[in-house]
């Protein structure tokens, strides 16, 4: 498939916080007794995110990003990181989209998706959960 065009909105500052919802299957055991975010969460060409600043302007909390989806977690990256990884960042707020919705656009090789996963900050929960140890 040919690479699609990457668009970027220069009005979005590098320090903008982009919230990414994590499906339960995208949180996997790491090797230091903590769970970690899999790169699978960051592979879509058009990666769905919510702008924290827009949510705050709309009087919404981070928890609102997980509304109706209690099994999911929430992490964040910055628009600056996305641009360092040759991605574009745009608003995508037209209905029926969420009014804080945006996209991180670009081809995400495995090294790029892994960089996102390593650099992502835990939001909900606030730190990586402990790896559950199964009873013998």
């Amino acid at each position, binding site marked *: 498939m040919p690479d699609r065009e990457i668009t970027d909105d220069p009005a979005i500052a590098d320090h903008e916080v982009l919230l990414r*919802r994590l*499906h339960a*299957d*995208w949180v*996997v*055991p*790491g*090797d230091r007794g903590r769970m*970690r975010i*899999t*790169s*699978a969460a960051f*592979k*879509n060409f058009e990666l*769905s995110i919510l702008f924290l600043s827009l949510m705050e302007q709309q009087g919404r909390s981070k928890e609102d990003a997980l509304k109706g*989806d209690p099994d*999911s977690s929430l992490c964040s990256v910055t628009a600056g990181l996305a641009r360092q990884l040759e991605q574009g960042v745009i608003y995508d707020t037209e209905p029926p989209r969420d009014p804080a919705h945006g996209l991180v656009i670009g081809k995400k*090789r*495995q*090294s790029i998706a*892994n960089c996102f996963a390593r650099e992502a900050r835990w939001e909900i929960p606030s730190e990586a959960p402990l790896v559950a140890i199964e009873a013998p």
Partner: protein
Amino acid sequence: MATPELTRLERNFVATPDFSRLLAELTERERRLDAGTSSCRPEPVAAIIRRTSRGRQVAFWYLEDGEPKPTWLGPVLQGFANLVTLNDNWDGEGARRIDPTTINRALAAMEEVLPYDASAPSIVPLQNSGLQVEWHRNGKDVEIEFDPTGSVTFYYFDAESGEEHEGRVGPWFATVKEYLNRIW
């Protein structure tokens, strides 16, 4: 002396029901190989392992040859069962369910790349209907991505040295096996 191909076929082979055609092919191939070799092994018979995920039961067919099962088999089958039971829009963003053919290709690959006593990988869904298997051990990461188009790629990262590699998986997963040997 057994060839590598024969060795692979001698092991248990796991598949979901959609894979019955290939299972039949392998059974036929094994029959042909058996015809040319002398063996005291019992004839493998088709058997089923069941796993439950999201309230649904998933059946995996395999060839039971009486040998002990690999240590990773149970967790790996549970991981694949978790993918089989994902419905359309599992991510809330419109992703399609995970492609069954891709699941079966990945299942066959596990048998190819994993030693008998290997650590089980995490098995995770991708939004393009593909899947990824991944290991994170000793500060090193190995991932194999199975795309629904048939493409298979790998990724390796060593957090201590910063060494990083990615690319297409070659024949017999030789490169992936090399990187996996660094993390066991």
